[in-house]
């Protein structure tokens, strides 16, 4: 699947690799969610 096929909302950030594919929708103003969504930071760090 092409990355552009995943784009629906604007703006969208697509992280095609490593699998699974991740997309982050929105202006990325919520930094914490962005980092969790892109697997840059594990979700269960802070309770």
């Amino acid at each position, binding site marked *: 699947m092409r990355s552009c096929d995943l784009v629906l909302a*604007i703006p969208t950030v697509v992280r095609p690799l490593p699998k699974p594919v991740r997309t*982050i929708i929105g202006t990325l103003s919520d930094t914490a969610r962005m980092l969790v969504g892109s697997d840059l930071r594990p979700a269960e760090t802070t309770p």
Partner: protein
Amino acid sequence: MKTNTKTTGRRHTAKAARLPRCPTGIQGLDEITGGGLPRGRPTLVCGGAGCGKTLLAAEFLVRGAAQFDEPGVLMAFEETEKELEANVASLGFDLEGLVRRKKMVVDHVHIERSESTQSGGYDLEGIFVRLGHSIDSIGAKRVVLDTLEVLFANLPDEAVLRGELRRLFRWLKAKGVTAVITAERGPGSLTRHGLEEYVSDCVIVLDHRVSDQVATRHLRVVKYRGAMHGTNEFPFLIGADGISVLPITSLSLNHQVSRERIATGIPRLDKMLGGRGFFRGSSILLTGTAGTGKTIISCNFGHAAARRGERVLYFSFEESPNQIIRNMHSIGLRLEPMVKRGLLRFHSARPSLYGLEMHLATMFKEIAEFRPQVVIVDPITSLMDLGTVSEGKGMVTRLIDYLKATQVTTLFTSLTQGGHPLQQSEGGMSSLMDSWLLLEDFEGNGERNRVFYVLKARGMGHSNQIREFLISDHGIDIVDAYIGASGVLTGSARAAQGALEKAAALAGQQEAAQLKREVERKRGALERQISGLRSDYESEALELRRIAEQVGTRTLLLSTERAESGRLRQADIKLGSGMPIKSKAGRRLP
């Protein structure tokens, strides 16, 4: 006043004409909507799972591309291109070919909640761009969005989504494309997420209901802004060639009628119907209890038509074709050659095989394919048992209207369950029929006999008599039933009555002969008497003549004697007649 109404009338028609339609090409749907969906506007198609939303939308696109030269874009949120291709290919649509020829674009939008995260505000410009690109790449006139509600499940922030959808529909209208948006039906509202708020030009609701274990799909146009449309619920089918909606009410009563008459294959029955049989294109009902010979009469009718070279389509819902052919063979009716020559076609199906609508659609299809002049439905009652009374009547009405419109003569047989057949006239079905023959069983004297009569025959003089009919090795034989003071006599009772009548006639003949002999004898006696009298008379007359002659002779003799003596005595000398005589007289003096 007059001009006023005229102008409003014109304005009304002008308004209707101003709203252009976009034909769907779906059989029946264009009829209901008066030509198709509103052109250049979005239409909402909603319904529960498995009622055919996606198929309706896909057919709208495919037919648009293939039949009306209007390319289309299918934006699918649920199914992939491959899945869609396979789905519509099963209904005979070549989606792949249309895509290859740039008549269609299928765009699968992959969206998965688990794979995405929201971070901050967003809009759906991505959809706009993709859709805009697809539309422009092939010059699409039609767009299908199937199913937008997936967005609600997979995208956060519903308020943003609603605003974006509102914008999307406005944008589609501005693009001038005719769009179909499918949506899942929600509890208590037309769609689960209230899409009808945004798409309000035309709303079609699909429904899939099960009654008596038979499922029927229904279609209803809930809303069609600014246009007349059929508001009823119409049954529809997904058949081998797509969707077909069967409008009940759109049929009208203005078909052509024929004066031509066609023979029934039973000469005596023709005679009962004014000597020439049924009208071509009429509908005939044949009611009777089990074993009264309905199928036999139907087959005779079909056989006669096939022998005239007409095509006959026989819908059998109880017997298989081979069974009918074999059974008819036993009464000397050979149907096999007719089948071989392609004049007679059987269509056998168990009534419970599928629902009423599917049966009707199959029948329509068969009729359209075979183009018969005569259609026989044997028996119609097993079909009518599938639905409610009104559904059954609606079906028969549609069938009759369809057949009458094409001048097809139809014979329906109807199985009655004992009792008086008139009292259960098949839910008013009989009022739809032009002619009605009634077959009955008469029980008595330890035997059952078949009788039949013509209950009604519109537009022709017909016999009011009850006739008995016999089924023998060489077909049907109609005989007069004996109708007397004691009622109708059939079978052996009729034969006994015949013998009685014969004996009575013989006795009468004998009596007459005896009377004749008596009269002869009397005449002889009279004649003898007359001749006796005559001879008496003759002898007396002879005697009379003899006496008269004697008397005559005697008188003559007397007179001559007297004259002689007179002459001797000169008695004739008249006094004073002459002197010489006087002198002569003096001679008498001594």
